[in-house]
């Protein structure tokens, strides 16, 4: 049955995360943006509370064992819970959200392609009883972003493992991460079939962070440049193990690991963008109610802008929920994931810009809005640019007609 009512569990997750966003994230939001980092003591406190960003599914502080039992009993809803929670985190502060301890974007590839031993080794280190830890995902290079097949980082097979050489850029939490999922090629002439995904652990000789990027927005989030110089990675850190790639024969390999990740993470990223848009909308609605006269040209314009913003947010949320729902029921969702990301990234910036318009010059100083605007723009770019989302969507639309675009 078609329904947009949250189950009590979904509502509970939303309420808990919203409380956290409002009472823990918002108070440090502007300051963290100014400092360009999330305070360490805050991260430690949060970690002790058991709050983590896991993009495979959001556990909202529940005990793992409890959760597994629940899953068996009822319909899978991890993806829906994840987008519900991410919207609230985006509402709180997207930069801080991206800095919450946990495997982050590195989680899904390990979860979906790792061997049982690798899952245990890499995913069990995130615990509230330990210091805060992070995972990261390193795909983009200076000369290969949207075109993932163009990556140049090499992995040379040697006795007992591989030697990596190359550079990665725009890596969220890349410097603080305990491990990074790194995509490299064993043979550029093989194209996508030559791709491999490795888990490179912090402190591995030949692996270092060379620089942190300074950005338009999400300034509190760490965006690292990583360098691999004759970096030896043992065989057991090849994601999925040798057998995984051998069994696939001619099919794309590391590339598929990279792409599969996106179908899971795009709805989450989209919902953070929706959270940003909602934060801007709510802030402006409140402001207009207090500051505008109840008639005239400005009031009329505000009515129009705010009604449109509300629709944009609602439409984006429903696209995102659908993508998450499809993942939960085990249906392919590449098209829906791309559509929701394309739409949400676009409307988030648009809503922020229109809200700034309603505030006028006053919006320039000491309002969260200008920060939301700067933060929103990245959602049109990372996890696949808006253009890539269009490409993926079009590809899915033309596939039944036998045309590959």
């Amino acid at each position, binding site marked *: *049955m*078609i329904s*947009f009512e949250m189950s009590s569990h979904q509502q509970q997750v939303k309420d808990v995360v919203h409380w956290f966003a409002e009472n823990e994230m918002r108070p440090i939001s502007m300051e963290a943006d100014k400092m360009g980092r999330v305070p360490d003591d805050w991260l430690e406190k949060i970690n002790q509370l058991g709050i983590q960003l896991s993009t495979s599914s959001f556990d909202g502080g529940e005990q793992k064992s409890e959760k597994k039992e629940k899953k068996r009993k009822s319909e899978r809803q991890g993806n829906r819970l994840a987008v519900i929670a991410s919207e609230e985190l985006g509402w709180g502060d997207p930069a801080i959200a991206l800095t919450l301890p946990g495997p982050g974007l590195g989680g899904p590839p390990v979860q979906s392609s790792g061997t049982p031993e690798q899952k245990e080794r890499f995913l069990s280190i995130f615990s509230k009883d330990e210091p805060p830890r992070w995972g990261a995902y390193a795909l983009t290079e200076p000369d290969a972003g949207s075109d993932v097949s163009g990556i140049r980082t090499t992995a040379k097979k040697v006795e007992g493992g591989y030697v990596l050489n190359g550079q990665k850029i725009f890596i969220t939490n890349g410097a603080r991460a305990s491990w990074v999922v790194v995509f490299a090629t064993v043979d550029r002439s093989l194209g996508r079939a030559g791709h491999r995904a490795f888990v490179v652990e912090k402190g591995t000789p030949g692996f270092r962070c060379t620089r942190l990027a300074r950005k338009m927005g999400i300034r509190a989030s760490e965006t690292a440049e990583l360098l691999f110089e004759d970096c030896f990675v043992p065989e057991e850190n090849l994601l999925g193990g040798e057998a995984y790639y051998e069994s696939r024969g001619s099919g794309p390999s590391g590339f598929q690991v990279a792409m599969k990740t996106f179908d899971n993470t795009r709805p989450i990223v989209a919902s953070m963008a929706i959270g940003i848009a909602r934060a801007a909308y709510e802030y402006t609605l409140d402001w207009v109610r207090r500051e505008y006269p109840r008639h005239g040209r400005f009031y009329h314009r*505000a009515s129009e802008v705010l009604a*449109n913003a509300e629709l944009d947010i609602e439409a984006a949320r*429903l696209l995102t929920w659908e993508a998450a729902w*499809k993942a939960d029921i085990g249906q392919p969702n590449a098209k829906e994931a791309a559509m929701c990301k394309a739409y949400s990234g676009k409307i988030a910036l648009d809503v922020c810009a229109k809200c700034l318009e309603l505030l006028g010059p006053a919006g320039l100083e000491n309002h969260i809005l200008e920060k939301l605007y700067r933060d929103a723009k990245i959602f049109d770019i990372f996890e696949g640019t808006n253009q890539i989302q269009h490409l993926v969507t079009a590809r899915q639309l033309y596939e039944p007609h036998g*045309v590959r675009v």
Partner: protein
Amino acid sequence: MISFQPTEEERAFVDLAKDFAEERIRPMARECEEKRQVSPELVEKINELGFLALELPESWGGLEMPLISQVQILEALSFGDLGVVQGLPGAGEAASLIRLIPEHSVLNVYREAGREGSRPTVAFLHAVDNGTPQGLKVEAEGGGYVLNGTSQPVRLAAFADYLAVSAEDSRGEPLLLWLDKADGRWHAEEGDYRLGLLASGCARIRFDNERVSQNQVLAKGDEAQGMLSKALSRIRVLEAAKEVGLMEAALSYTTGYTAQRKAFGQEIAKFQGVSFALADMAIETQAARHLVWRSATKTDRGESDARDSSFSLLSRVHRSLRFVTDSAVQLLGGHGYVQEFPVEKWMRDAQAQTVLYGREGDLLVRCGEQLLNERIPTEV
């Protein structure tokens, strides 16, 4: 629990409607447009299948479906051709009014008239829009009313045996009237319509000193206002659903066309100027569909903001409809503009539809004013 899964029953209905739309409605669309009427055989078949009775109450022999089911079926039917769907006779929009007051004595004659199967046609005439009279003057006189003037063009007016009229009398009191052509005289004035929905029986209604007695009054005052508001909320959602059907038609036709059409040595789908525009059409269509479903479930559940949500819904879906049907014509190029291909008709129909059902900008502003005037949380 959040879910986008239709029920088994809904799927069965939708499959039936979609097949019928493709096999029977689509091939007849041009002919119906030229004859300015849906062919009687097509109407008969649609009536047999029950598609004219989705909204009517069970006590009237209708299916009394929830909106969430109806919107899926109407979308599937309109996938065939919106022009045909909008020209279907029967209770039309008045079904949403009848559903609210199935036992009202003023409706008895009409109720009986539909017993044998095919139901006479009703046009729903809105002689007042948000407090502004629309061409009709209604004066209270001797316990009844006198109607004068000419209305705006109304769908189905040319075929109508009955009229549902929403109006305000000269003192500003809201009124809902039910007029039977058998005991009154009104004139349907068909204009020179060329834009679209040409089979939908658009006409102006003219009244010359038409006297209406108390037993033609469905409701007045606050009761009339409340009833009208409820019926219109339902109508907006149903109309938006039909628009999504037309969007899906334009999207699917354009996908097929651009996948086989070649230029510069390859399928034009391979040019990103084309494929990205198609992706935008798909995104817009899916977003509109979800918004329709959302409003339908809100109305079915009787949520307090269902009415306001129907305003903004229709405004957005109008915009999406114009965008998607225009994009279809654009992507077919010259072929999009000529009548050998269906998309030029769809764009015209789309534009006519958005003109007939509420001014897009006005709907939006009304919703925005509601937002500013009361605390409506956007959080879900």
